[in-house]
Structures are given as C-alpha cells and as structure tokens.
C-alpha cells in the first residue's frame, strides 16, 4: 500500500511549490481568492444555485406548497421511472467496464510497447473525435448506423442489419450509446492515462525489469496500480457524465421519427416531465435522484481509492 501511495502522485508537481507557498502565504492570499473567484462565481450561479433550486422544486408542488417526499414517491411510481433507470444502469455498467479496460490497456501499450513517434500519432488520432462537439458526433453516428448510407454498411449487413430501424432495435441501444460515448470520450482519457503513466519514475520500471518482470508483468503489478487514482478519477467523471445521458437518445429518437422510447434515459424523463407535462417539480425530483446516485457513486470511489489522500510527507 505504501508503494501505491507514493506512486499515485496526483500532486507530484505541486510538491516544491508547496514549500514556497508557506513563506509567501500572506501576500498570495488575496491573489489566490481573486484567481478562484471567477470559477467560484460561475459555480455558484450555474452549479450550486440551480442544484438548490432543484432541491426546492422537488420538495414543493406547483402551488409552491411544501410537499415533503411526495414528488419523489410519485416519480418512483411513474411507469417510465423503472425502465429509464434500468436502461441507464445497463449502459453505465457496459460503458465503465469498457472505458476502464480499454483506455488503460491502450495507454499502457502506447507508453511501453510502441515507438514514441508512432505513439504520439496514435494519441492524436484517438483524441480527434473528442474534439468534435457532442451533437455533431451524434449526427456522424446517424450516418454510421444507417446501412443505406453508412461507410460500414458491409459490417452492418454482415451482422444481419439491413435497415436503420433494425440497427436501432431497443436491445441494441445501450451498445450503440457505449460506442458513441467511447468514440467521443475515450481518446481524451487515453491521453490522460498516458500522462499518468509518464509520471512513474523510470527507476521503478528499471528495478522491476532487473527483478525479471516482463512488460505485461510490470504493467499489471507496477504501472496499473500506480495510476489507480487516475483510473478512479476517470471512473467518477465518466460515471457522472454517463448517468446524464441525453443528447444521444434524444437525437436518435428524433432522427428515427420516434422509434425510440422518448423517456429512454432518466434525463429524458426529466425533460419530458418538465417541458411536455409542465411538471417541473417531478422533473426536479428525477434530477435529485441522479444527483444522489452521482454523489454516492463518487463517494464510494473517492473513499475506496483514497483519491483525495495526499502523499505521505
């Protein structure tokens, strides 16, 4: 465990500056607040305040009366609540497992099994789709998924899909959304994981090599444990983003002229409740469920991985 903690150097570059900061703490104080204020103000205006407003809405009814937990009870009993949350659960499990497994494996290969120049080219290629905005990337996938126009129509036909409507059958949807999410999101994480692997001192790998560890042995016993905090960090962010899946099912629903359930994901359910039924209170209750799930998930990962534990001094 001690070895792991020294290795997971989330704050490694900050270490020397820490000493410096101690001597200049008083003078730096004001500037520090100034630098933080920009983010803090935006966070309060567009993060904290809307969250508190959602809490307020979820505990009241549309006449502004206190409704206790009744809104939560009502949405849990809604016929769309269970399917939406089970859809997102299936999606999340697939997405997180694939994301963690593939980004780490790819990053390890790029770091230790490839010439640096070639590795740089691949990192760039992996990152490109992530630079495409969310909506645009979904539109790209609309074409990819329609055998009539898709560049991979041969593959789709080989899988037995002759039409767009066969491709977007309900049981395929989690897989499709994982593909889209991986394609847009994984490249960035591969670059981050690569950076994390770079942080591992060469002496450690050197020592492992001298002790007879092959490349896979050092990957499994040295590299991956030493970037475990980064993996936890990635999982927390991907989990939070994954629970909020919205654009992908929403656009696919519109493009297929309604062949998808309009409340496939919980966020879509909140959207429909708010804007179609005018029930902002129930919508807020759904979003509070997502908030709690996200916080609990993050809490477990943070405490289990020791993400916020600083290095032993």
């Amino acid at each position, binding site marked *: 465990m001690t070895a792991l903690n020294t290795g997971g150097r989330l704050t490694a570059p900050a270490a020397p500056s820490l000493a410096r900061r101690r001597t200049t703490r008083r003078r730096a104080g004001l500037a520090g607040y100034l630098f933080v204020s920009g983010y803090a103000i935006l966070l309060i205006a567009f993060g904290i305040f809307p969250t508190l407003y959602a809490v307020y809405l979820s505990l009241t009814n549309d006449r502004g009366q206190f409704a206790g937990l*009744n809104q939560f009870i009502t949405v849990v009993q809604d*016929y769309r609540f269970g399917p939406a949350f089970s859809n997102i659960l299936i999606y999340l499990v697939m997405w997180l497992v694939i994301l963690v497994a593939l980004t780490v494996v790819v990053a390890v290969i790029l770091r230790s099994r490839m010439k640096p120049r070639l590795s740089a080219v691949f990192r760039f290629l992996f990152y490109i789709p992530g630079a495409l905005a969310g909506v645009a990337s979904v539109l790209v996938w609309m074409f990819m998924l329609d055998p*009539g126009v898709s560049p991979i129509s041969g593959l789709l036909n080989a899988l037995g899909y002759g039409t767009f*409507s066969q491709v977007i059958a309900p049981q395929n949807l989690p897989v499709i959304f994982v593909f889209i999410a991986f394609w847009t999101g994984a490249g960035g994480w591969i670059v981050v994981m690569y950076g994390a692997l770079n942080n591992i001192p060469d002496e450690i790998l050197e020592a492992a090599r001298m002790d007879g560890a092959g490349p896979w042995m050092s990957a499994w016993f040295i590299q991956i444990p030493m970037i475990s905090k980064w993996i936890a960090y990635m999982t927390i962010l991907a989990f939070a983003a994954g629970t909020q899946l919205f654009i992908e099912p929403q656009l696919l629903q519109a493009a297929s002229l309604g062949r998808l*359930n309009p409340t496939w994901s919980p966020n879509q359910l909140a959207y429909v409740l708010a*804007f*179609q039924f*005018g029930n902002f209170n129930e919508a807020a209750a759904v979003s509070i469920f997502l908030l709690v799930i996200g916080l609990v998930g993050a809490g477990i990962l943070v405490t289990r991985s020791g993400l916020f534990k600083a290095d032993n001094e």
Partner: protein
Amino acid sequence: MKSSTVPMLGTSKRRALRVALAVVSFSVAIALAGCASASQSTTTGAAGFTKAKQDSKATITVWADSTRLPAVQAYQKANPNVKMNIVTYDGSADGSTYLQTKVQLFDRTGKGWPDVVFASPTDVTWASKATSPSAQAFAAPVDELVSSSTIDNFAKGSLTPCQDNGHTYCLRNDIAQVVTWYNKTLMDKFGYTVPTTWEQYEALGAQVAKQHPGYVLGWVGDSNSQESYFWSSQCPAFDLVKPNTLRVALSSPDCTRMSSLLDSMIANKSISTQASNNATFIKDTAPKVLMAVGPSWYGQYIFNGGFKTPAGQIAAANPMTWDGDTTAATGNVGGGVWMISSHSKNLAAATAVVKWLTTSDANQGGAPTYPAYIPAAKVWLANPANSKYFASDVSGAFTTAANEVWTGWSNTKFSDATAWSSVVLPALTAGKTLTATLPAWQAAIVDEAKAVGYTVTTK
C-alpha cells in the same frame, strides 16, 4: 493532511455523520407528518381570454413547418407593410413536442410566444388550456376573432379537434382523408384491378407475392401508418367516450381484423414494414409500389416528392370497405391547424394571416394539401396543377373519402404516434406479428393516457 490528523478527522467525520442522520430523520419526520400533495394543479379550460395591450404596428412572429413556409412567405410578399418574423420549425409532425416544450418555457418566462403557429391537431388539446394556474391558455379562441360564417364554411367535422368548452381554438389548414392510392401504369401492366374491399386487397397481396415478388401494396413503417390502417378499420384505440374517459380496446374484432390482414400481407412481403422516408426503401422498394393506403397528401408528397414517381402513373380510388359493410370508414392522417396566440400584441394582423392561410383561394387553391375550407377545396380540385400529376381525376375519391372519415379515433392530449413508433414498429422490425404486439401497444397507450390524466377503459 498529515497522518497525525487522521484520528481527528475520524471524530469529526463521526460527528458529521450523526448530524446528517439527525437532519435526515428530521426531514423524513416532516415529510411523513402530512404535507401538501404532489399532484399538479388542474387547470380549467380558458373561458375567454385577456388580450395583451394591442399595437397595430407590432411585428408578428409566425412559426410554420417547411411545407407551409412558402405560403407564409407569399403572404409577406403580398403584404409588405405587415411586419413579420417568419420562423421554420418541425410543425409538430411525427409526434414532436417541440411547440409544447417551447410554450411551457414561454409561459414560465412570460414572454417569447409566437403570434401564429402551424401545428398538429394534438397540440390544440394542451394549447386550449392553461399550462399552469398562473398562465393563460396559449391558443386564442378563434371564434372571437373571425366571423361565424367563415367557421361554418370548414368541412364537416374538420374543426372538431379545434373545439373545446364551446370555443374554437384553431382553424384547420387541411384534411388528410385516407384514400386508396395505386399506380395505374403498373396495375394495368400486370392486369390487376383495384380492390374495393379489404378482403380483395389481402387476396391481391397473396397474388402479387406469387406473381411479382418484390412489389408491394403498401407499408406500415411510418409513424402515422396506424392512422391509415387501424383508423380505417374503426379500431377503438383512441376513443374518447366521455371528455375525460378514453376507451382503448385493441382486442376488439375491429382491430384484430386489420392486424391479422396486415400480418398475412407482411408475412408474404406484399406489405413492407419499412418507413417511406427510409433511403433504402426509396431506392429499392419505391419503384415497386403498386398500391398504398394513405392520406390525400401521399400523392404530392410521397409519390411525387419522395419517390419521384413520374407523372401520369398514380391514381386514387375510394376507401375500401369490409365484406358485409355497406359504407366505408376511413382514416385521417394529420392535417395541420393554425393557432393564434392569446398573448399576441397584434391580434388583427395575426388573425388576417391565419384567415388568408386557411381560407383564401390564392393560398389554398394551390396548397400542397387538400383544403379543409370547402370553397377553397373546390378551387383546389379545379386547379390543373393539383391534377396534372395524376393518371386520372382524383377529386371523386377525395370528396368521397372526406365524408367517410370515422369519428371514433379521437384527438387526444397525447400523440397517437408515440406508442406506435416506439413500441409497435420496433416489435415488427424484430419479426413479431402485429396481432401479437396488440397487447403491448394497448399497454403503452394506457400508460400514456393515464399519465396525462385520462380515465381509461379497455372494454
């Protein structure tokens, strides 16, 4: 941060936990102590409306779908002194809720409403009522803005979806009575006669499947195919028996006769389960469409615009009957409406646009769809531009069908397309039969109906 602080952190953590537990149990206690119900306020139908301060020079914002856009632009061209802001949107087609979503937001912010919108009849069900206790119903009662003689000239029943609480909240742009479309050139070439009953239609399907495989007599993969087929079969899927009681009885023989007919034709591939706007369908199947059961706008939109079938091939026949029935019943697929915003600052200009769009010969006589306004419909039928595409005169079939639209398929507060598209069509794509999917379809409609507050009966 240092290891020495860890035990301290532990105690503070424990204390925090205790506080949190106290807070949670306190709030649960409050919650259980009885508080206001979570149910939404019920809003009464708007009886009359409060006009905004009128300004005869105010710009009017008009929302139209891309099909109706040229008509609005033509009005602007003919009336350059009217200040107009023309916006294109999806026109609420295919079960879209864009307009409803936006109006919900405008109602909350108290501004932004368009003055005039083109929408689907479904939209009138929510637009004629306030979205919240503090809001005013979006749609203005048109009967207080136009003369009753204008309203009386709309085709019989065409304004029914617009009416609520004794007021009329929209003017119908077009009606979309379902007729029997056929490709005269191909039918003559193969030596087939156009069926007049559904039983003949099914028999022809079996014949085509054997003699000319690949050719089809229709398709069911569109988000409105249920309106062409099940509505024509008088299936009680969306039957408002009382203003707030919806009858959804898909096990009725009037539904199963259609589902088993379609199942047999889907099985021998004389009916396609694809959507008519699908690229593959247009490329491979569209040239082999012998017949189609569909609305009056299929001619110009689907055959001419979508399939690019050459002129002089397509013709329309009367709706088909069932053996033993003397009169035909037919469906209605869409047919847009125009609504005027009750929040408009320039009701006079807004009303003038809507009146011109729905009733003028200048616009409706050349409209892409069949006018709901009777005098304009006569001009429309006489307009050679509307008839020259077809192999023979379609006016007979159109007028007959317009009088045969079955009234038991009600305009409900939710779109009849959602359940069909998201439950039935994926099941068909997966190879299930329609008859086997009826229970799932019924369950989906019942869920939707209950969610918007209907009492549901399934008998």
